[in-house]
């Protein structure tokens, strides 16, 4: 018993590990709640693009000695709404317009990062995330914005679903469909930045998509999938922190691996159950 308690409590004799756990769990819960919209709307590529294109904003904030969020979040929102506008108005294909914006801004960010000296962030931090280095203020920003996003989705869920399902019908009954769309993109921007700070640019997509996609395999409704996805995301985050502590590895790839592993288990279970049901039906006929 003592060994178990010791093992479980072990990482948290260090305050930074406790902060890392809280930030990871917040990200793990928040991502799938928005993620069910991202997965069912096919916004994953957009999320990936936002995560890359906010880099200049983040580097600029470091250069000015400000919190990275203060540069990255406005930049991500501008990119998200700007791409949304381009797709809607300019008639440029989604993957094309997003691809142009994302590659250009990521390249700019890389140039800024390598050209600037003396900023407290490396390319490795950007790629792998900085959850182990999260300060108290990082934790507060993450907690505040994560709660805000989840409150908005809980409060405006039915309107967001209507706008996602049938934008024309949604406008006809007098709901501000376009504003709801931009709200969704704005939330995507915020969630992407928070997630990327924790797990790094490349793995944002795994937190945003994998737990939500796993949940959608198991539960076919928005509310249920959001809850199940949040549980999976939280479990991945906690597992990532423990494994990273005991095996001395960066936590974000572990979180992504655990999330992918749960997805494979869910897929296998689903296929297996579907197979058994089919087999039984076939036998009964």
């Amino acid at each position, binding site marked *: 018993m003592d060994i178990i308690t010791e093992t479980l409590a072990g990482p948290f004799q260090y305050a930074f590990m406790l902060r890392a756990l809280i930030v990871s769990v917040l990200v793990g819960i928040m991502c799938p709640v928005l993620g069910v919209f991202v997965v069912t*709307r096919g916004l994953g590529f957009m999320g990936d693009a936002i995560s890359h294109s906010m880099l200049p904003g983040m580097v600029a904030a470091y250069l000015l000695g400000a919190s990275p969020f203060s540069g990255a979040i406005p930049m991500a929102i501008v990119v998200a709404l700007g791409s949304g506008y381009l797709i809607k108005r300019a008639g440029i294909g989604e993957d094309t317009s997003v691809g142009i914006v994302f590659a250009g801004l990521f390249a700019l960010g890389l140039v800024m990062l390598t050209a600037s000296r003396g900023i407290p962030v490396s390319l490795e931090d950007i790629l792998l995330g900085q959850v182990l280095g999260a300060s108290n203020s990082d934790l507060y920003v993450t907690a505040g914005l994560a709660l805000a996003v989840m409150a908005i989705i809980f409060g405006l869920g039915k309107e967001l679903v209507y706008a996602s399902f049938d934008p024309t019908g949604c406008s006809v009954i007098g709901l501000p469909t376009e504003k709801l769309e931009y709200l969704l993109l704005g939330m995507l921007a915020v969630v992407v930045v928070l997630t990327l700070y924790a797990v790094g640019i490349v793995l944002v997509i795994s937190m945003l998509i994998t737990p939500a996609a796993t949940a959608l395999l198991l539960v076919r409704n928005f509310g249920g999938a959001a809850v199940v996805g949040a549980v999976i995301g939280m479990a991945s985050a906690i597992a990532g922190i423990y494994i990273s502590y005991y095996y001395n590895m960066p936590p974000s790839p572990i979180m992504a691996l655990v999330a992918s592993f749960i997805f494979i288990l869910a897929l296998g279970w689903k296929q297996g159950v579907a197979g058994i049901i089919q087999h039984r039906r076939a036998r009964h006929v």
Partner: protein
Amino acid sequence: MAHSHPVAPLDVAEVSVERGSLQILDNVCFTAAPGCITGVVGPNGAGKSTLFNVITGLLPPTSGRVLIHGEEIDRVRGKVAYVVQHEQVNWRLPMRVWDVAMLGRVKSIGWLRRPKREDREAVEDSLEKVGMWDRRRSLINELSGGQRQRVSVARALAQEATVLLLDEPFRGVDVASQAALVSVLMRLRDEGSTIMVSSHNLNLVSNYCDECLCINCRVYAYGPPQEVLTQESLTVLYGPSGAIPTQDHDMLDRRIGHHH
């Protein structure tokens, strides 16, 4: 006949829509009565969808006006429901038939609120009317095209709309499902709804519509289908090479496609 009602559910007066130098609708006028199904026919690009967008308030006309029960659309939003072409709807969302019908209540439930008993009753009634109550727990991506249209009609009913517009609801729908949808629409008509249906299927339009609006930028004819859908008027509407279109939409498109 339609003009004898003091306040028509739908009154379209001198509506024109221009986009740049392109005239899409030219001085369109008609009045639809309560308890009436109006078929809207015309070649591709004739402005049928544009007309629906104007009626539903999505697109302000360049000139002219639309009155719903004698009021501007902005004052009676909930009275009008629009069932768009099915590819404009995201049927892959993880929703059940019940959830889609409940969308019709979103506006009356209000921001930040949850459905109440009256909302659930309205959804139950509307699903029963379209014959989808038994499928209420089915996922929408498992439904056939015709069932999806009926669920969309249920959503309009849950909304308590009195004017219902359907944009090509029969396209890609098999004959049995077409019949089921037609019987739902006829029942709603008998209960007093004003229904407009755009379609390329002239057989269906002539069989169940009370009125037929022939449109190609301007109104070519408006009246009972047996009077309006003649070989002569169709030749004028669809162009000289446009014989009576068949149910085969590809063939129809090929025949009339170059007459936009």
